Every structure is written in structure tokens, then in C-alpha cells.
């Protein structure tokens, strides 16, 4: 399955990509919400979106809302450097919200399959 990863920090995006790849997913990387949107249009098979929260111009939650507004119902996981609960409160429609830390390689795969199974 293809997963779109949006993070303005290219290294962070690659890190998440590496974790996903090791689980057998095909990550598509984008450095901004706009680039992410383009990727989604070009790759209709994407099954999940993972996005960073704090990005220039359009942040993660704005990106999520934009997608929903356009009728895109893909599962959406928000990554944040701050308290994930806050973001979850701010936008209840998020499928999951996870803290950026060094355990991503163990915590992220579980969360991805959990989110996918719920759908």
C-alpha cells in the first residue's frame, strides 16, 4: 500500500518513510501540504496520509481539513512535536495523532495498522 508522508523536514520524512518501508508499505514523500496534494492527485492508490503538524504556509490540521473539504476521506495520522492530545482536541476528525520521538520505528507501524483496520 502507498502511504503519503508530508513533513517539511526532509530528514524526518525520510525517517518515517524508512519505518514504513520496513513494514512493507510504499511511502511517497512530500515536503509541504501543497506538494502532498499534488502527490495524492498523481497517485490515486494512496491509502493513508501521515503528516507533520507544524509546517510553513499550511499546517497539518489545515491540510487535513482541506482534504476533507475536497471530499478526500483517506485515513489521516498527524505527527506532532507537541502534546498530541491538544491536536486531537483541536481536530477530532483525525484518525490518530502521535508524538515525534525516537520510538517511531516501533510505535508507528502498530498505529498504522490500527488505523487501517478501523476503517
Amino acid at each position, binding site marked *: 500500500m502507498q502511504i503519503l508522508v508530508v513533513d*517539511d*523536514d526532509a*530528514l*524526518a520524512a*525520510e*525517517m518515517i518513510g*524508512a*519505518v514504513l*518501508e*520496513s513494514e512493507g508499505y510504499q511511502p511517497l514523500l512530500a515536503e509541504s501540504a501543497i506538494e502532498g496534494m499534488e502527490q495524492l492527485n498523481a497517485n490515486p492508490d494512496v491509502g493513508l496520509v501521515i503528516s*507533520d503538524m*507544524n509546517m*510553513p504556509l499550511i499546517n497539518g490540521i489545515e491540510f487535513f481539513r482541506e482534504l476533507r473539504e475536497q471530499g478526500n476521506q483517506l485515513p489521516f495520522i498527524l*505527527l*506532532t*512535536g507537541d502534546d498530541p492530545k491538544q491536536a486531537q482536541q483541536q481536530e477530532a476528525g483525525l484518525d490518530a495523532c502521535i*508524538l*515525534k*520521538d*525516537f520510538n*517511531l*520505528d516501533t510505535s508507528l507501524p502498530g498505529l498504522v495498522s490500527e488505523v487501517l483496520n478501523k476503517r
Partner: protein
Amino acid sequence: MNSNKPTLQEKIARLRASFISQLPKRLEEAQHQLILLKADPCMNRVAAVELHRTFHSLKGTGYSFGFHELAGIAGDAEDYTQQLLDLPDERTPPQWPDRLIGLLQELASQAQILVYTDMRKDQPLETPFFEMNDSSSDKDSKPGACNRLVYICDDEIDQVTHLSYQLRCFGYQVEHFTETQEFDRAVMKKRPDAVVMDVRFPHGGTAGTDALANIQKVTGQQLPAIVLSGRDDFEARLSAVRAGCQSYFTKPARPLELATALDEVMEEEVFEPYRILIVDDEPEVAQYHSLILEEAGMLVHELSQPANLLATLQEFRPDLVLLDVYMPDCTGQELSALIRQFPEYLSLPIVYLSSETDRQKQFSAMQVGVEGFITKPVIPEELVAAVALRAERMRSLRALMVRDSLTGLYNHTTTTELIEGALAQAKRKQESLAMVMLDLDSFKEVNDNYGHVAGDQVLLALSRILRHRLRTNDIVGRYGGEEFAILLKDVTPQVAFELVDQLREDFSKIRFSSGQQEFYCTFSAGISSFPFYLRAEELRIAADKVLYRAKKEGRNQVKLDDGNE
């Protein structure tokens, strides 16, 4: 599965490394944004927002890669910037630029630490080498330990930081520069003990060596320097020769070899005066000769009682003995024969001072192994020349005889002698001494598993650390294959214990490699002390006993003799 594909862990490791190498650039950006913000705080809300984001992303990505300290500081900086953004302009605290600059500096020093500790992954692994993970030798060195200052000048920042880190492990104090102008200024301010210089810089193919040559011209003094260059051509090498550099290394140089070369260029600087013992029953005559030799820069000890000769030999450790032939208690011949009874003094030059002009009598005196004859009254220049020449030869000869050829430490025999000498001195001065017996753990396995070249590297690394981290007047010897004996002067047992234990911890962090394999090595040590034990042999046995206990209780530890053994 394709086995050539990097695993997730390998990928993460690579990404972490990229993150670290990008840190300086990220911090530079933050600094730039801060400058903009400072220039016009009211108008530059955009800069503040960008700065906030830079800190935020440093925090997030920092946490993602497990760099918690760095991420923590970035988080503080982010929060502070957020506060600035939230406050109306007129309520902005006046000290805000200082606070942000402080945080940026904290980030920079964290970045520096990460650069040091993570660089090791960049080293090629074909040849055995070693490095330390964590540098506690960055901190101020032990009291009394000589910390020689080395300047590195190289425009490749990665090379420089890596090399500085390595050399710090060896006990040097290192400062580095990426521009020759900056280097020039630093040299004028404070002269280093040695320099490692690159040849090519952006502003000139031989700008590095030119800078060295120029410093020599301006100051009239030659800086002890080593060239480390990516260039290996005639012009570059010639420029190094013309700048007076003693050694030339091409990149990448192995830190151990570089450290050895540094030692060599620096050791030429220190010249220890020749030590001359004068035995003469007439103090006035002794004083006169002593004056002539001291004028010539030698260190002289006068002895008027031949009975004290042995103790004095042990303590003063002369390079040469000047003997009066006729003395009331015993003759010069008798004294020389007595000195030669000791194997350790077989090579000690003895020169007679005598008014004897009879060739035949001179000859018979020489037969007991005397190096020369100087007739009284002496001609000062002649005395100085005769003494200096022989003392010099003695030095070179002794250096060959007293040092272990692999590690450069004192060999077994010399170590034993020196310890006896130090003990005699400590008794007289009523000082305390600590004797350390130190043994590498499972060293045979190192040789078996990784080969003897790797084993030698371990021995070299340990001896280098011992030599650089202990004081110059401490005695460090290679006692046997993987056994070392150390005598620490004028320290309490507790201080000795802490010192050796710190060395043990640092040594255990050195990562050795052989081919693709990596391994660590540890040592155990036992410490005994004077005046708890009065004789050298007793000290050694007591230290050995506790060393044995350290081994038995699991190795990689230091045990102090508490008298209950």
C-alpha cells in the same frame, strides 16, 4: 529478501548521521533569522515565525532521532519564541536577544557534542584503529598532567572536528580553525605546542604551508608542524619542506599515527638537561666543576661522601658520573668497580677527574670500565665537551635500552629501577606513593579473534592514554605482555584510585576495529601504597594481589589494597 538492502536500523543510523551533519547549517539559519529579528523586531514578525519554526522542527526531528538533549533545548527556544510572538510589541522583554543567543549557543554546543560522538561512523574500517565514544578528556585534565596545545587548521570542517575529537582522546588540548587568517591571529595571541596544517585552502593551492612559512618569517621562530593534506604531489610536499614541516600525512590519516608524529615534533622542543653527578671529597673543587657544568646548562649534584653513592645514583639518576680518583675513604677505581657491580649501571659513563698525568696509571684506571680521564686543573671548555659528548651518548643508548619498542613505555627492568628510585625519594621527602598494577582483560582473546595487529593497537592505545593522562614524573612501564606497572607520586591511595578508575572507564569506551569487526577492551587494576608498604617488592605483590581479586570479581574494575589481603 535482498540481503544487500539496508535494514531499517541502518537507514535510521544514516538519517541520524545526515541530521547531525546538517545541524551546523540549521543553526546558521536560526542565527540568520535571529539577526533579522534583532535588526527590526517590530517589522520582522516573519523572521520570528521562521525562527519559531526552525526551533520547532529541530525539536521534532531531534526527538525523532533520539537526540533528547538537543531537542529539549530547541523546545525551550521554541517556547520562548512563541512567548515573544504572543506578546504585544511594547511588552517585549528587553533581554530577549540575549536569551535567544544563549539558547542558540546551547544548541551549538549540543551539536558539537553530537558531531564528536557520531563522527566515528564515518571512518573506513579496513585497518585497525580506535576511537572513543564519549570524551571525558574534553574536560580539564588531571592536575599536573601536561596538556599540550595543538592547533589544527583545515577548511574541511568535518575533518577538523573529527580529528580534534580524536586528538583530545589522546590528551591534547585542541583548537581548530578553518581559515588561515584566523589561524594566524590565534598563533600571534598564543603560540601552540604544535600545528596540524592542511595545504590547500579555497584562496590558494598551498595557502596552508604558505601561512606557516610566513609565520616563521614574521616571528623568526619555527612552529613545530605536521602537514595533513589531500594533495600528494611534488609541489605540495615541497611547500611543506620549505615551511619547515617535519612530517607529511595524506588524508585520511589515522589518528594514532598523527598523534605519534605530534609527539615527535613536540619532544624536540623539550630538552632535559644532562644530569651529572660529581664525587669529590673536596667540596670546593666539586663546586668549581659543578659551576662550569651548570654554566653549560647541565644539572649537577655534588657528593662528598662516597658512602652515599648508591642512594644518590638511585635518586638522582645521573647521565654521567665525574669521579675524583684520590679520595681518603676509597679510590676512584674502587668506586667504579662498585658501580659496575650493578647491572643497571653497566652503561653509566664514568669519567675520572685527576691530577694524574702518568699514562700507565691512567690506563689501569680505565680498565675498570671508565670512559675517560680529565686531568686537573681542568680547562672549562674541555670539561664541558667531554661530559656533554658522553652524556649524550648515554642518553641515546639508554633510550634504546630502557624503552619498550612497541609502546615506548619503560621496559620491565627500567620500571623496576625507577620505582626503587622513586621509593627512596619518597622516603626522604616523606611523600606518599601509589603503585598500580594494571592488566588488560582477556587480551589473549583479542589476539586470537582479531589478530596481533589489532592486539598491538590495543596495547598502543592504552600506553598512549597512560602517558598522556598521567603526569610526566609518574612512572609508567610495560611490565609484561599485557601487564603495566604505574607509580603515581605524591598522591593518596584514594586519589590514585579515582584517577585509575577514570582511566579505566575512558579506556573501556574506546572502540577498536579490525576489518569489519568492532570490539571493546577493558583492563583491571590493583593499587597499593607507600608508606603502607615500605619496599618495592612488597608494593608490587600487594598491588598484584588486589589486581587478582579485581580479575576474579569480574574484571573491568579497580581494587585498592586496604591491608586486609
